[in-house]
């Protein structure tokens, strides 16, 4: 009798817990019954103008990957000019025509176009669409147990507006005079007085991209707040979802000021206003016409008010992906999950008040400098907390060295180098020496390239089985990882040496005209070969990616033996995602629970009475 009573009490407790959980979650009716008799959609509705978050996520990912490759190709061309200034580009040099590269030798204007567009494409059309539009769209609704995004049509629109923005940017290369050539930061007055129309196209393209990210980010926030599965409270969210949540707020609130700035610069370009044009500006011996009275520094404030949070838009989803991969492959809970969540929220908040550390050279005064130096030092604390928590998660684990784990592990020291080399730049005195040198290039590329992009590769290898039902090849993945890891460090490490030596970052000839650069020029040749080598090592990835869709090893729902909700759906999930309505019973990373039968206890596994 006593035993039975005990069981009954336990059962009642479990039921109560379930009832509590059921107050937060979608109603029981819904997609489950619908799933039985959904109509077959035609090709266009299913794959092109789809409202399914998974298809849109894959569209974003493929487009983002294309732009990453395209932006990287621009850089490989620039690297030839830097390694061997003034010599014709082999193989492809003659394809660019007389106005860009006569006789295969790159013109300075073309070099500037490549530089400006490399930055723009990598940030706004490559990394962010892949990290947020791609992974966020595909993984986030699955991880919170939602049937789709909250606004599927807005989701589709967000992709197609991004696509249009990308087309406008690409088309600008074919204008007379070519694409924008004033750097990805587009500082006026230079960007306004440049006579070609590339900058106008750049601004129009940016307005498309900003609109797209606005639509995407509000959709993400509503989805995370409204469509979490029954029992999935905020502190049970996988860290990846938290990262996307904070990222979406950054996109929602930081991008509009750049949209405003873009509109103002567009007015300067096409309506002859002088928002950013000072009075009495003289270019090539002539006074620039216009009413004057504008303020070039204003652009920098508006631009960096977006572009600093943008840095965290680039890094937070990467941290999210790395957290998922590390928890899964260490077979341990993340160390300090709560501290990580609080840190990521604090990081998002602080990222709005550090922007002017990009502007120490504008003479904005010591009080302003002191404020922004302080906030910059403060914002490094939550980043260090997250990185430390990830590092400590490795302690005492029996690590599975799968391909996604290799990339995730490499992220830690790479982001560490990128972050630590940023500290001198956040303080005005060393920044005055280092500003606009290759040191800066090395610093932010360590954060974004071997940092974020490696994390994105980890994510691709990790969620590929969910998207396709097949695994990618481990041997090719291994070649891809080690080749990329060695080459990418050979690209960026020498840049610190060049930058500390005072080499300017925007030199068409690599700085050969200055005597102090003489001992630094040899590195340009090495960086060039490392960059082209890096290009070669992407070939195994491209082959692996496409071949695995057709011939990869077939897997079931949960090939990595993971704990989060996306692994309870079929691989690949159908429209509506889950076969039965998902219910969450526990936190996201219950690996190696003492006394459990297996080393992972999924969120969706009911508790045994």
């Amino acid at each position, binding site marked *: 009798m006593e035993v039975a009573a005990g069981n009954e009490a336990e059962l009642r407790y479990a039921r109560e817990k379930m009832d509590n959980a059921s*107050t*937060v979650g*979608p*109603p029981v009716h*819904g*997609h489950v019954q*619908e*799933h039985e008799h*959904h109509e077959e959609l035609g090709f266009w509705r299913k794959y092109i103008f789809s409202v399914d978050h998974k298809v849109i996520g894959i569209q974003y990912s493929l487009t983002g990957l294309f732009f990453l490759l395209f932006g990287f190709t621009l850089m490989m061309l620039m690297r030839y000019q830097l390694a061997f200034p003034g010599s014709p580009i082999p193989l492809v040099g003659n394809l660019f025509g007389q106005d860009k590269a006569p006789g295969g030798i790159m013109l300075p204007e073309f070099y500037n176009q490549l530089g400006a567009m490399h930055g723009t494409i990598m940030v706004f059309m490559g990394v962010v669409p892949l990290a947020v539009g791609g992974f966020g769209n595909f993984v986030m609704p699955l991880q919170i147990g939602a*049937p*789709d*995004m*909250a*606004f*599927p049509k807005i989701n589709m629109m967000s992709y197609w507006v991004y696509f249009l923005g990308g087309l406008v940017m690409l088309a600008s290369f074919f204008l007379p005079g070519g694409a924008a050539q004033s750097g990805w930061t587009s500082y006026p007055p230079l960007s306004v007085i440049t006579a070609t129309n590339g900058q106008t196209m750049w601004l129009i393209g940016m307005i498309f991209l900003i609109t797209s990210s*606005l639509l995407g*980010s*509000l*959709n993400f*926030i*509503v989805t995370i*707040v*409204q*469509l979490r599965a029954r029992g999935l409270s905020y502190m049970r969210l996988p860290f990846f979802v938290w990262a996307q949540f904070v990222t979406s707020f950054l996109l*929602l*609130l*930081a*991008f*509009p*000021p750049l*949209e*405003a*700035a873009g*509109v*103002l610069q567009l*007015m300067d370009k096409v*309506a*002859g*206003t*002088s*928002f950013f044009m000072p009075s009495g500006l003289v270019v090539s011996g002539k006074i620039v016409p*216009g*009413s004057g*009275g*504008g*303020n070039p520094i*204003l652009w920098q404030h*508006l631009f960096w*008010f977006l572009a600093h949070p943008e840095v965290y838009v680039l890094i937070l989803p990467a941290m999210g992906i790395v957290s998922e991969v590390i928890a899964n492959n260490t077979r341990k809970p993340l160390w300090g999950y709560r501290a990580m969540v609080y840190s990521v929220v604090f990081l998002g908040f602080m990222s709005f008040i550090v922007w002017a550390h990009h502007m120490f050279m504008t003479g904005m005064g010591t009080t302003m400098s002191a404020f922004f130096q302080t906030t910059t030092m403060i914002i490094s604390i939550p980043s260090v907390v997250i990185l430390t928590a990830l590092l400590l998660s490795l302690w005492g684990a029996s690590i599975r060295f799968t391909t996604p784990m290799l990339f995730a592990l490499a992220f830690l020291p790479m982001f560490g180098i990128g972050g630590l080399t940023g500290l001198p730049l956040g303080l005005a005195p060393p920044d005055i020496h280092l500003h606009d040198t290759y040191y800066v290039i090395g610093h932010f590329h360590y954060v974004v390239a071997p940092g974020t992009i490696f994390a994105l590769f980890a994510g691709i290898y990790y969620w590929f089985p969910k998207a396709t039902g097949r695994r990618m090849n481990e041997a090719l993945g291994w070649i891809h990882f080690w080749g990329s890891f060695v080459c990418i460090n050979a690209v960026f490490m020498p840049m610190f040496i060049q930058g500390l030596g005072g080499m300017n970052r925007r030199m068409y000839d690599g700085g050969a005209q200055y005597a102090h650069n003489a001992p630094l020029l040899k590195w340009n040749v090495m960086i060039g070969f490392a960059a082209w080598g890096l290009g070669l090592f992407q070939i195994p990835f491209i082959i692996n990616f496409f071949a695995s869709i057709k011939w990869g090893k077939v897997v079931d729902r949960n090939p990595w033996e993971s704990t989060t909700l996306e692994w309870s759906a079929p691989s690949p999930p159908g*429209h*509506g995602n889950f076969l039965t309505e998902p219910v969450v019973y526990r936190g996201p990373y219950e690996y190696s629970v003492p006394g459990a039968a297996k080393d992972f206890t999924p969120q969706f596994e009911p508790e045994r009475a």
Partner: protein
Amino acid sequence: MEIPYTVEERPDTGLANGKLGIWLFLASEVMLFGALFSTYIILRVGAAEWPHGELNVWLGMANTFILIGSSVTMVMAWASLKMNQWAKHRMYLILTFALAALFLVNKYFEYADHLRRGEGPWHSTFLAIYFTLTGLHGIHIVGGMIVMGYFIGPGAKLWKKNQEQFANRIEYTGLYWHFVDLVWIFLFPVLYLL
């Protein structure tokens, strides 16, 4: 497949998806106009002199009352739905649309007057910010009119199928419309009076 909480509220958040969505959208709009108003302040503080009396205060004041009136009719359009008075709803929504159009006509006369004198946005920093701010605000008015036009025309069918959802949509349109109105309430003193 059906997305949960498109019409009914989620119990723990007390919100339907669309309500949260429109508020987030408005938050982003606040940042957009916030950046533009900041631009105005910075340019004005840095200017050697700032023109006064360039604009017709009476036309601006008329437009202020037109927009405030349209906000009232917008609320009435929503409230009549809640009281199940379809004919009244139609009347108020069409009235709102007409007031928005009247605002634009008024604005057209103001613009035309400046341009006739050759004083476009290129003429001075003041006119540059005037045309940019009121132009963007005007685009928002047009956007609102497109949405209202949709609910007067093809979107009205939804009322027969799902009354609550239709009323929600009018409510969200109203929230947006009040925001556009509010922006003008800031624009009028900043540009016409100060």
